[in-house]
């Protein structure tokens, strides 16, 4: 009984499944898709300047989700890895936007003044810091962790989303051992090459969204 019943049902299921799989185009994934236009946003940064993605056409844009108290973020700031990447990026004309999506009362939440102080004290060098306490920008991009990195090319197309590197740990010593997935992606986009690993696993603390 099981043999026959399963075989037949499975055949039906598999048949139906293959029809669905072949007959329907894959529907759009809710989060942004690499290779498609990055979602448009307009957010005022901590210096009071409006940062609008469509105004940044012609430039490569990096989005970095951050949370100064998260051990994974701390790993990349303590090792100066993040600052180095920021300086390298801005020197090459890349617009680097650090995004803080922590809600008020949650870990990592800061106001504009505190954010600027933090940038100075960490010797960070982003083009600007965006505050997103309502989590709108974070949810628009499907940012899950801090850090979570996105690279948008000069035409406004999303080219990379994922982890900063390949070793998901809080250990500073792992920074040099890891494969620099984000750096490679950014360099590929800046030099107009194809990103080898366009979607990778983001690792870190969860983004402390408003609930």
């Amino acid at each position, binding site marked *: *009984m*099981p*043999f026959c019943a*399963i075989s037949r*049902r499975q055949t039906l299921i598999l048949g139906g499944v293959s029809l669905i799989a072949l007959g329907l185009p894959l529907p759009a994934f809710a989060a942004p898709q690499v290779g498609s236009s990055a979602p448009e946003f307009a957010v005022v940064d901590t210096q009071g300047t409006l940062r609008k993605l469509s105004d940044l056409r012609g430039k490569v844009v990096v989005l970095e989700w951050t949370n100064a108290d998260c051990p994974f973020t701390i790993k990349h700031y303590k090792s100066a890895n993040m600052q180095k990447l920021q300086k390298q990026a801005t020197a090459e004309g890349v617009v680097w936007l650090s995004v803080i999506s922590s809600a008020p009362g949650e870990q990592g939440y800061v106001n504009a003044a505190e954010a600027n102080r933090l940038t100075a004290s960490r010797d960070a060098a982003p083009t600007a810091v965006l505050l997103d306490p309502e989590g709108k920008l974070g949810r628009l991009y499907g940012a899950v962790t801090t850090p979570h990195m996105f690279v948008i090319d000069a035409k406004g197309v999303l080219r990379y989303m994922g982890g900063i590197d390949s070793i998901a740990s809080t250990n500073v010593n792992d920074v040099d051992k890891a494969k620099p997935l984000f750096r490679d992606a950014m360099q590929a986009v800046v030099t107009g090459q194809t990103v080898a690993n366009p979607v990778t696993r983001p690792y870190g603390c969860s983004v*402390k969204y408003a609930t």
Partner: protein
Amino acid sequence: MRLAQLHRCIRPLSQGFCVLIGLVFAALPAIASADESNAVVSPRATVSLISDADAVAPGSRFRIGLRQKLAPHWHTYWKNPGDAGEPTRLVLTLPPGASAGPIEWPGPERIEVGGAVSFGYRDEITLPVTVNVPSDIRVGETFAVEAKAEWLVCAEQCVPESGIFRLRLPVEAVSKPAGSDTTAAFDAADLRRPQFSPWMAGLAVAGEGFSLILSGPGLSPETAQDAAFFPDDWGPVDYAKPARFTARVGEIALALARGPTFDASQRVPGVLAITDSGGATRWYTIAPRISMPPAPSPATAVPLWQALAFAFLGGLILNLMPCVFPILAMKATAVARLSGGELREVRLSALLYIFGILTAFTALAAVLLTLRAGGSAVGWGFQFQSPVFIAAMSWLLLLVGLNLSGVFEVRTSGLGTWSGGRGRAGSFLTGLLAVVVATPCTAPFMGVAIGAALVLPPILCVALFLAMGGGLALPYAALAVFPGLSRRLPRPGPWMLRLRQIMALPMYASVAWLLWVLARQTGEGGLIAGLAGTAAIGVAAWLFGLAQRGPWRRPWTYGGSVALALASVVLLLSLKPVDAPVRGIAASEHSEPYSERRLDNLRAEGRPVFVNMTADWCLSCLVNERIALSTDAVQAALKDRGVVYLKGDWTRADPEITRYLRAFGRDGVPFYALYPAGSGAPLVLPPVLTETAMLDAIAAIPRSN
């Protein structure tokens, strides 16, 4: 008071007090027995290294475990931490010669914090690791284990913690189990240990998501009230989106959202947690994919109409099996000859062919029933276990080949006429022969039909066999029903002669194969008898051909050929199966011979086992072995999972193997079963194997060390 109880009772108290208690324990290592190390204590977690042995013996295996006792709201992570977090890491330093396996991750739970979903553990968890003690370590020495561990412990926020733990275990002649506290910790981890899933796991793509579908006996809304899936890797599943669970009798489904790297052509390995209506959760490893071939579970009772349908289908498939190939060749020539003939003749011939097949199947059923009544352990394809049958078949096919090659002609009615499929008796006998040659190849569905036949009342048994015969006869029967088909056949001409000669080749190939089988069954002596018979038959056929052609038409030529043929029959009687010398399967690098005792022992040890029942006369067995079993990838996968490969050879009758097959309701080979580690039920693999199917099945087994 046990540490776990202590931990629970201090929970409501201040965390400072908790730290204090922890410090007291850490500061007083003398209190701890050999089976628990120093502890690293924070307000979030109390972590130590434990052993399930108080003393270890040389050459033994034991387990150590990182025990994490977590304060309320805090959690640590599984091997795939989910959206955020980091799995616990463990680096071991062991005495020279000792080795350790990976962390045997207990089944995790789903932890949702602020919209992000993590996979991990709350309250208390032990992460076990199996350690092999070298056999050259001396009694009286100390087996020292040092573990460097890093773990991330999170509530709303995350804190990385680490520690170095040391265990010093005395080496004694006999291992000594640990105390009840640490044993209980390992038991709790073992309860969460993912088991090999006894169900068939598939994957269906629908809308923006996909569904995991498990089917098989034992699944129902009661046994599975809820389920959660924990994929091994990041990518295919979007964890944060809600999953939708449905259950009905025999099948459960979990609808999930696709992650950024979902690929419908890839399998999605992971652990499925199933919670029953009593609230108890069990974890199962699965590796579902869309194209997963159906993996039948052991057959029991089959409804009659289904058995008949499958028998018919099985018969139909027999037309395509390699064993039937020579017969198909003969049918093709027969049809070619008939194309110029009368329609009535075609119809009659097809009917006679069907009648021949049905007669053969009825006879087989009768033989099977007789032997069954006699209590004989008999299986499908059993006639191929008889060397006399093999030798006779090889000579018969040699005669057919020589006839097709034109060495002699068959003009009279009688034995020879069937070979070319000419004439009415020929059609009937071709049908008979098709059945005899087809039997060793158990088509996928036929095993069940035969299994059912063996436990059914005799009349139903005969009905089943007739259904199978009907399936085998169907293609030819089409000629009888639609005589127009034969008009589309090519006109006769000189090409027929060439075709006939070409058709001799598969006959000669079959002869070679049968002689090889004979050699495996009877050893060198049997092979010599077989070859001598082959030579005699060859000369007999040549003499017979001479006698048919003018000047040599003399009584002595006929007489000579008949005498030689008789001599070969005498040779048949000398054929006896031998036992030891060519025991088909010796222990090889990869496999060892099957025996009931060996299997029982391995199962008692909880080792994963792959059983392959095969026979030299079974071509599909040999093909499977070639393309799916002996490949490097499959051998490496088996080795990687510590699977013991048992191979049973059914080339000669072997009651142990027959019993084993009967236990699964089967009466033929090939037969494949994969037993998971522990005591889980075996997974019966389909008789037509592919490398991918094998790898899928192996991948679904949890790692055993």
